[in-house]
C-alpha cells in the first residue's frame, strides 16, 4: 500500500468517526464507544475491500456486511452515508419517530444487510447468508462484525462451528476485541482467555491486527483461504479516536451535552485538517 493510499484510508476513517458522532449528537446520546472502535475496519472494508453499488443495494452478488453488534449502528450509518447509500442528512434522524436509523441496525435501511440488536443473532444469519451465496453460485463474501462481549453468547460458537465445519471460506468474521463490554472489562465480567486461539481451534484461518492499523486491516481482510472461514481479531480500543471517550470508564452508551459532542468533533476535524 502506498503512503497516499494509507492516508486516504485514515482520512476516510476520520470522516466515518465524524459522521458517527454527528449522528449520535443529533439525538443527544448513543453507543459511542463500540461505534468508534470499528471505524477503521469500516473504512477499509468500504473503500478497498467490499464490492457493492450504492445505487443497487440489493444486488445479489454484492459483498454483505452483518454488524452483529447492532448497537454500533451509528458507525455503519455514517459509512453508508459517506458511500452514497443514504443522504448525509438522514443521519440526523437517529432514533426519531418513524426513523429507519434505530439504535440497532435494521435492514429496512438501504445498505443494511441484516437486522441486529439481540447480540449473537447476527452470527448465524451471516453464516446463513454466506452459505446461501455459495449454494446459489455467487462469488461474493460476507463480513461479520461481532463485539467481544457479544462472544459470551453461545450462539456465536454454534455459528462458528458450523461455518468452519461447512468450509465457508466466503465468511470473514471480525471480532472487535476492545476488551470491554457493558458493565466493565472482559476481565471483570467474563474473561475470554485467548480469543485468537479459540477461533483457530474452531477451524478458522485466524489473524490478529490492531484495530486502527489500516494497512494491517487491508491485508487481513484481503486474506483468502481454500477451505476455511477467516477470523480477524481486532486488537482495538473502545472509543478509539476521541481521547475523552477512550479515557472514559463508561463509554458504552454516552449521554453528553451538545458542547461536549462539539469538542469531540473539533478534535476529529483538526486531525482531518492536519492530514491535508
Amino acid at each position, binding site marked *: 500500500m502506498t503512503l497516499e493510499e494509507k492516508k486516504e484510508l485514515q482520512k476516510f476513517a476520520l470522516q466515518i468517526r465524524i459522521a458517527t458522532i454527528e449522528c449520535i449528537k443529533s439525538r443527544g446520546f448513543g453507543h459511542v464507544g463500540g461505534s468508534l472502535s470499528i471505524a477503521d475496519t469500516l473504512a477499509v472494508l468500504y473503500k478497498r475491500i467490499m464490492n457493492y453499488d450504492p445505487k443497487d443495494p440489493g444486488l445479489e452478488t454484492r459483498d454483505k456486511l452483518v454488524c452483529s453488534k447492532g448497537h454500533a449502528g451509528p458507525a455503519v450509518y455514517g459509512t453508508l452515508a459517506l458511500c452514497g447509500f443514504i443522504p448525509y442528512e438522514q443521519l440526523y434522524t437517529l432514533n426519531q*419517530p418513524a426513523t429507519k436509523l*434505530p*439504535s440497532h441496525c435494521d435492514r429496512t435501511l438501504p445498505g443494511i444487510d441484516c437486522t441486529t440488536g439481540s447480540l449473537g443473532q447476527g452470527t448465524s444469519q451471516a453464516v446463513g447468508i454466506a452459505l446461501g451465496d455459495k449454494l446459489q453460485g455467487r462469488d461474493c463474501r460476507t463480513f461479520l462484525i461481532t463485539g467481544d*462481549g457479544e462472544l459470551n453468547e453461545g450462539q456465536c460458537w454454534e455459528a462458528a462451528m458450523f461455518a468452519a465445519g461447512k468450509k465457508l471460506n466466503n465468511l470473514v468474521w471480525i471480532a472487535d476485541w476492545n476488551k470491554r463490554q457493558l458493565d466493565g472489562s472482559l476481565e471483570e*465480567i467474563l474473561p475470554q482467555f485467548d480469543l485468537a486461539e479459540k477461533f483457530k481451534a474452531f477451524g478458522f484461518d485466524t489473524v490478529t491486527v490492531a484495530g486502527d492499523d489500516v494497512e494491517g486491516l487491508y491485508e487481513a481482510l484481503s486474506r483468502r483461504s481454500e477451505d476455511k472461514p477467516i477470523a480477524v481479531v481486532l486488537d482495538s480500543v473502545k472509543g478509539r479516536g476521541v481521547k475523552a471517550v477512550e479515557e472514559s470508564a*463508561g463509554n458504552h452508551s454516552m449521554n453528553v451535552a451538545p458542547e461536549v459532542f462539539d469538542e469531540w468533533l473539533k478534535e476529529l476535524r483538526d486531525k482531518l485538517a492536519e492530514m491535508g
Partner: protein
Amino acid sequence: MKIVYTGEKDSRQYKSVIPQVIDKVMQADDKVVWLDADLMGCSGTKGSYGKSDRYINCGIAESNMAGIAAGLAASGLKPYAHSFGPFVSRRCFDQVFLSAGYANNPITMVGTDPGITAAFNGGTHMPFEDVALYRCIPGAIICDCTDVPMLESFLTQAKDLPGVKYIRVGRKDSRQVYEDGTQFTVGKGNVVRDGKDAVIVASGIMVHEALQAAKKLAEEGIDVAVIDPFTIKPLDEELIRTYAEKTGKVVSAENHNRIGGLTSAVEHALIGMPVKFGYVAVEDEFGEVGPQDYLRTRYDLTDEHIVNVIKGM
C-alpha cells in the same frame, strides 16, 4: 391497602430500588443470589458486584444464565436473574421452561424495559410477548409491575414462591399508586378505584393510564372502576368476574400484545358471562424505536383510547 396515587412521577427510579431490595433480601436469607447478563448497570446492581460473591455477572449469555440459575436452585440456592425483557423471555425460553419449570427448580426472572418503555433501544429490545411466553409455563407467577411498593413486595416474596416467577419492570420512572410498604398477595387483585358503570383491568404502566381515563370519564358522569391484578398469572378471576357482573363492561389495558397477555387472560376469565369486553393493548405488531411518548400514541396505549373504548361499548 391504601391508594396514594397523584399522577406525579415517583422520585425514586426502579433501578435505584432494585439493589436496595435485593441487598435486604440477601441479608435476610443467605441462600439468595443475583445473576445478571452484563446489564448490572441497568438493574442498578453494579455497585454490589465484586463486594459480594452472591452477585454474579454471567456476561451476555442469557440462556446460559437461566440454566445456571436452575442449577443454583437445584443446589439449594434462591436465584434471581436479570436482563432486558426480551432476553429473559424469548432468548432463554427453553431453559426457563425446562431446566427451571419442568424440572421444578424455582427461579425468579427479572425483565427490565417492558413494552414501550424500551423506547430508544428499539424493536429488538421491546417485548410485547414476554407475558404470553411466561403464561404458558405451567405454574408460573407473573407480575407486570405498577410501582415501587409493588416491586419491593414482589421481589421480597419471590424467593420463597414455588416454580418460575417473572416480573417485568421499568428501569426509570414510575407513578406511585400504593402506599409504601404495601403487601401484595399472589393471585389477589387490587381495586384501585371503585366504580359501577365499567371496569378497567390494567397492569404496569397502564394502571396510570386507566386512572387518568377514569378521571376523565368521571367528569362526564361515567363511573369506572380500575382493577390492578398484581399477578397476571395466577389471575384474580373471581374479583374480575365480580366487577364484570356489577358493571357489565370490562376493558383490559396492557403494554403488551393483545395476544397471550392480560387481555387474553381477562377474556378467558369472562367466558360464559353476558358482559361487554374491550381492550387497549398492542395490536399484532412488532416494536419500534422512538421516545416513549411517541410510542404511547403509536401503539394507542393512552388514557384517551381507554376512554373511547369504554364510550364505544
